[in-house]
């Protein structure tokens, strides 16, 4: 009974945090782009004269989306048309269940893993869920009875399938090094140190090429510039061209949730997840010989903080990329995916295998 309650609280907490971050991202996106472009950014929405740096725009947006007319185009397949946005957002959200947001918390003698679902095939589960997200895009494109949406659907399917393969191939190296698919185990394994204890054994240090490949493929997975071909707002307007109101909002949120998911995944795989450099379960052990003892609770809190700081860093990176680059063309995207990224990730697997056998 207690375990079920704990799991429930963890799941609800994760969901709320993810929704909170994704909502906040609409604001971050506006403000960060404004900063990059010498503008002020959103600052109009007020509540009783308080502007809160434009934070109220999040509520204004939601209110606007909820109060808009739900439009279903003539000739559309109503069932699939209504289903598509739910598929998109659901599969983006459930992926978070397997992401560890912190280490092991001991409460009243209970050891709690800060992870909604403690799966031993967490990585495969997340990839499966991300792949399922394609259905939202494809169904939206095909059921809208609109040529633009149709083009967007085709593009989305082709793009996400090609990049999923690269993504999986890219992290195979990481799996080989750490020898596990369990993300909690993976994070724990990244707590080891190399080169006399100075450099943590994070994925980015042991698999730098894999990191770069995954970053690129993951950016493509979020369907945002420079990989926003399914959307391409000045080109084909996108697979969700016929959607309005909150259903459009769901697609919009799904992109942002995916951004968070991809950032969390990169943190977990390549930056040690909740690991803080030199922090062990019983406190800091510095490579220059110092030691600072800490109890379980501060260690876990520091871990959770570290996780979210790393996630924010990746989100910031993805946003900066999104506001800097122009978009790829369809054939260029395919060339990049199949002719550069996939061979490179296969080469990475081969090199990793050779090195592992050599070191054994």
């Amino acid at each position, binding site marked *: 009974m207690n375990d079920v309650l704990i799991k429930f609280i963890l799941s609800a907490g994760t969901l709320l945090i993810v929704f909170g971050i994704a909502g906040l991202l609409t604001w971050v996106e506006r403000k960060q*782009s404004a900063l*990059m*472009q*010498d*503008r002020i950014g959103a600052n109009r929405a007020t509540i009783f004269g308080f502007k809160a740096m434009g934070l109220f725009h999040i509520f204004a947006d939601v209110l606007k989306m909820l109060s808009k007319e739900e439009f279903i185009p003539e000739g559309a397949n109503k069932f699939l048309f209504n289903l598509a946005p739910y598929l998109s957002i659901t599969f983006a959200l459930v992926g978070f269940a397997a992401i560890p947001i912190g280490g092991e918390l001991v409460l009243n003698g209970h050891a709690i893993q800060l992870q909604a679902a403690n799966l031993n095939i967490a990585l495969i589960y997340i990839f499966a869920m991300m792949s399922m997200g394609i259905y939202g895009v494809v169904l939206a494109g095909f059921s809208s009875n609109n*040529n*633009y949406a*149709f*083009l967007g659907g*085709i593009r989305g399917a082709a793009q996400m399938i090609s990049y999923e393969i690269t993504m999986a191939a890219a992290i195979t190296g990481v799996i080989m090094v750490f020898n596990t698919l369990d993300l909690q185990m993976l994070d724990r394994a990244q707590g080891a140190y190399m080169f006399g204890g100075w450099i943590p054994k994070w994925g980015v240090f042991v698999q730098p090429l894999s990191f770069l490949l995954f970053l690129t493929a993951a950016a493509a997975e979020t369907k945002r*510039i*420079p990989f*926003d*071909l399914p959307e*391409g*707002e*000045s*080109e*084909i*307007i996108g697979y969700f061209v016929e959607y309005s109101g909150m259903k459009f909002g769901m697609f919009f949120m799904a992109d942002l949730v995916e951004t968070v998911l991809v950032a969390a995944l990169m943190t977990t795989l390549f930056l040690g997840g909740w690991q803080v450099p030199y922090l062990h379960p019983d406190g800091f052990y510095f490579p220059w010989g110092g030691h600072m003892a800490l109890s379980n609770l501060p260690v876990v809190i520091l871990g959770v903080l570290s996780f979210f700081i790393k996630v924010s860093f990746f989100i910031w990176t993805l946003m900066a990329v999104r*506001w*800097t*680059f*122009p*978009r*790829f*063309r*369809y*054939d*260029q995207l395919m060339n990049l995916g199949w002719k550069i990224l996939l061979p490179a990730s296969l080469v990475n697997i081969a090199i990793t295998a050779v090195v592992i056998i050599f070191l054994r």
Partner: protein
Amino acid sequence: MTQRRSMLLNVGPSHPAMHGVIRIIMELDGEKIKGADVEIGYLHRAFEKMCETVMYSQCFPYTDRLNYVSPLINNAGFALAVEKLLGIDIPERAQYIRVIMSEISRVTDHLTCIGATAMEMGAMTAFLYMIKAREFLYELIEEITGARLTISYVRIGGVKADLTQGFADRAFQKIAKVRKVLIEADEMLTRNRIFSDRMKDIGKISPEDAIAYGITGPFLRSTGVSYDVRKASPYLIYDKLEFEVPLGSKGDNLDRYFVRMAEMEQSLRIIEQCFVQIPDGEIACGLTGEVIPAAQMVDRAKMGETEELIEDEVALDPTLQGSTRKYHDAIYAHKKDVVLPAKENTYGNIEGLMNHFKLVMYGHGIQPPVGETYFPVEGANGELGFYIVSDGRDQPWRVRVHPPCFAIMAALPKCLIGGMMADLIPTFGSVNMIAGELDR
């Protein structure tokens, strides 16, 4: 048996990249463009017909709305055509001012074109950098003309107002800022692999085809044909200025982008030279009197005190600043049947007042001799020509504009067919279609 059909896609007019004024019906095979049919005319305002219904000087507000991104060039073009019809020359200072303003406009036009192309390709930041640079130049234009977009600044026989005090210094500061932004944009776009890959070898046109279609401007020069009206048949004082005509070689989108980037630098160079060469305007002698408000001057003139007013200067509404006697001779041709008198004369004596009325009243006005003329200027998109027929009245009998993007739009399907759907964006962007001048 499978049946193979191509998809007809109706792009525009309510499509984000079509600016609301163009419709392209495309035949797609997957993402490949098999056919394209361009439909224009969504912004037709009957410019030419409207010009036939008003006096020559009243056409200027209409010309503002031709190429609304560089209206000063349109103004100058129309004025030059009428002046050719009238057979008059304008003072050198006015010519320099027209060149300065035209070149500023050319830079704003190219900035808008490149920025909008980048934005439609997804690089929003580059667009806003370009718009920031354009804003610096708009501030200069605003300072001289009093308006940002619909400026109506040029007059037949001169320009509306002289340059303001210390304008050259401010212009040099702004030019330095614009150059900085251009370097930033260059780093963001030219060195961006995605951008150059998307522009390279896309929307190609051969020099022969370009000439056959009658294309001019950066679009033609990108194919390697050196034709610039400013060099081929110099007008105003372009023959006194040193500048190069940047040329491309392949005639693709990337070359057009490079040509525009290089042209902006040349235009800035021209502006700098103009400020060095421009002759002094103000006349220092004679104006020893006091400055009195316009209404007071009119009242005193009515009482017959015209003798005492000869030395005085009139204090004017800001919109009329720069058209007093102090500046008048340097910026207007010395032709009483074409040019409005200085404001002191209008307010201060009956001859000036009559002169003013003779020019603004219907049936009087500027009356060029019977005849026809064509005058081309180098617009931002290419050769912008005005063909005017006069029957001796104060209204044109016929006005015809040679709009540079008309020919380019005719060639657009040729550039598009064979490419990808996504190539529509950079190719159409590099045309720099301005519907105001295209549809007139």
